[in-house]
């Protein structure tokens, strides 16, 4: 089963690995946006997660602690965003940009001692004989825990948003914060928690980049993954399972273009490496045109600050 030197089973398996960072970051951002907050700092939080996760994993020798460290590092940065936008009423777009600019600078500062080091290896979940099944084993039962965790997070977020009271309150806050406030829900507190969840998820995604996907620390390691995650939320029309589809789509494109580069396809390397960004634009255009179907599904209070006058 070889298509021009590319084995489909390996391709699908590596696609699943490649999409983990953007999937985690996008599902985190989906929750944030469902709460009515537009955090454009995903790129900055991801790269903070990447450097914090890498540093923690190298210092402790444990990839597990590395992921925790990455999540905490990015969460700390997202807390700055929460304080600025929720308590100090700063513009969300500008604060998100600040988060990205600051995160890129701080991460390259923190990562200076870690260039060229190999991180400890993240083990594959042992499924025993299942992993030896032809094709299916390679695709489904031969991954590290984060691949399964990312899918589990999507399922949990979907279930919480759809079936739980907590999800209902979160959506209410995102649709109409004044009404939610009048009903006695703590708008600011809920939003701060949502922002920090988004930060933790972006951090996990970033840590996955530096610990598994690449795996080493280089400046600007995220290379726009955070922005693609933001685009995936739009692509998904704010629906959790579509985030999974979107992330696999983009993971697929980036894996495919790398494979084509390696296989020596006749398309110039430059066009291949710009393809994920061009396809992001194309997807955004398709999703946002057509009577604004996805725009109609956007949380109504998205990007608006809330200030309780009384």
């Amino acid at each position, binding site marked *: 089963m070889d298509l021009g030197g590319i084995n489909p089973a390996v391709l699908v398996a590596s696609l699943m690995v490649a999409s983990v960072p953007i999937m985690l970051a996008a599902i985190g951002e989906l929750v944030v946006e469902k709460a009515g907050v537009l955090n*454009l700092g995903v790129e900055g939080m991801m790269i903070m997660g990447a450097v914090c996760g890498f540093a923690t994993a190298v210092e402790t020798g444990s990839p597990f602690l590395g992921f925790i460290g990455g999540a905490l590092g990015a969460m700390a940065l997202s807390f*700055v965003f929460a304080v*600025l936008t929720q308590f*100090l*009423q*700063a*513009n969300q*777009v*500008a*604060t998100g*940009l*600040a988060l990205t*600019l*600051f*995160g*890129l*600078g*701080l991460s*390259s*500062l923190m990562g*200076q001692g870690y260039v060229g080091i190999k991180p400890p290896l993240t083990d594959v979940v042992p499924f025993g004989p299942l992993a030896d099944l032809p094709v299916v084993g390679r695709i489904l039962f031969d991954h590290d825990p984060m691949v399964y965790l990312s899918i589990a997070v999507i399922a949990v977020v979907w279930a919480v948003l759809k079936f739980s009271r907590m999800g209902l309150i979160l959506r209410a806050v995102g649709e109409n914060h004044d009404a939610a406030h009048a009903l006695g829900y703590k708008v600011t507190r809920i939003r701060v928690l949502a922002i920090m969840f988004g930060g933790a998820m972006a951090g996990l995604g970033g840590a996955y980049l530096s610990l598994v996907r690449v795996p080493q620390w280089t*400046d600007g390691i995220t*290379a*726009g993954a955070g*922005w693609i995650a*933001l*685009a995936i939320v*739009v692509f998904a029309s704010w629906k959790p399972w579509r985030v999974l589809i979107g992330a696999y789509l983009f993971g697929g494109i980036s894996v495919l273009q790398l494979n084509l580069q390696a296989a020596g396809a006749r398309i*110039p390397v*430059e066009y291949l*490496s*710009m393809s994920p*960004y*061009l396809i*992001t*634009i194309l997807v*955004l*255009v398709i999703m*946002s*045109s057509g009577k*604004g179907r996805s*725009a109609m599904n956007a949380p109504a209070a998205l990007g608006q600050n809330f*200030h309780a*006058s*009384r």
Partner: protein
Amino acid sequence: MLVLEKRPSPSRFWQYATPVLAVVLTMLAGGLLFAALGKDPFVAIRTIFWDPLFGEFAFYLRGQLLVKAGPLILIAVGLSLGFRAGIWNIGAEGQYIMGAIFGAGVGLAVFPTESRWIFPVMIVAGAFGGWLWSMIPAILKTRFNTNEILVSLMLVYVAQTILSKAATGFLRNPQGMGFPGSRNFSTYPAARNVELIAGSGMHWGVVAAFIAVIAAYVLLQRHMLGFQIKLAGQAPRAARFAGVQPTRLVVMCMGISGALAGLAGIFEVSGPAGQISIDFASGYGFTAIIVAFLGRLNPLGILLAGLVMALTYVGGEMASTNLGLPSAAIQAFQGMLLFFLLAVDLLSNYRIRLMTGRAA
């Protein structure tokens, strides 16, 4: 308990005071950061903010100040128009790159001409390149309602790929022995962006930046488009009733900011940078976002803010050679400035009251 009370209209005093306060707070926090890196914070802050102006090598560094401030001001003035109207062009970095490639491409295509028209033509081509690159998000926004933030940002990555293709491929110096990078404009007198007053750092890009500041000031104060920009930003609904066409506003704001970023690119490549190279993009397009906010989206404010930000670049380079301060520290420092700016902006829009007892 502290309570925020919205002011009926923004405080005039704090509008002027907040940028200064933000710079002071950033110095304090930056000092802590530098101390954490094991450098003497007082020496570091002095090296960044004082020495370029009044230190030993100030005669040279003062010139560098204008070289750095020129592109920052040029780009930031353009961005501020859109930011005022709620149109977020954050892809100025890409437009800057495309301006440089278009302009330099035109210049290099007719190498080695001695016509005096070539430099003006390159400038126009540069502005056109930036404008063209900004029209992509603008048209997608107006035709398909696509988010201009994401599209303009994605195009930065595309532009960077084109840049590396230009440096290693279609604009590579044919006599460069296969090394990446175009011909150097310093060996191409007719197309060169010369230093107008020796040692001052004053080149045509700086002149253009000053013109842009004045033009933007007049536009905002005296022109219908300026009024519409301000109206659309402050009261979008009222703007619609007043007959402001959102489509036209998006195209104008994106176009102006793209063209100015393209101008900054061509002036940089034909002057201080000298050639198209892989690492030509230096992040001016992103730093200009901070400059625009530091200048409170006001053209005259941006002029000052650009100079302050240029100071952190020049001083930061000094600090990295003299004190071994990592250059990434300066980037973090600049990011911090934007945080503090946004935080203290609270003071101009809200009053902080101390409430005693329970709120009624």
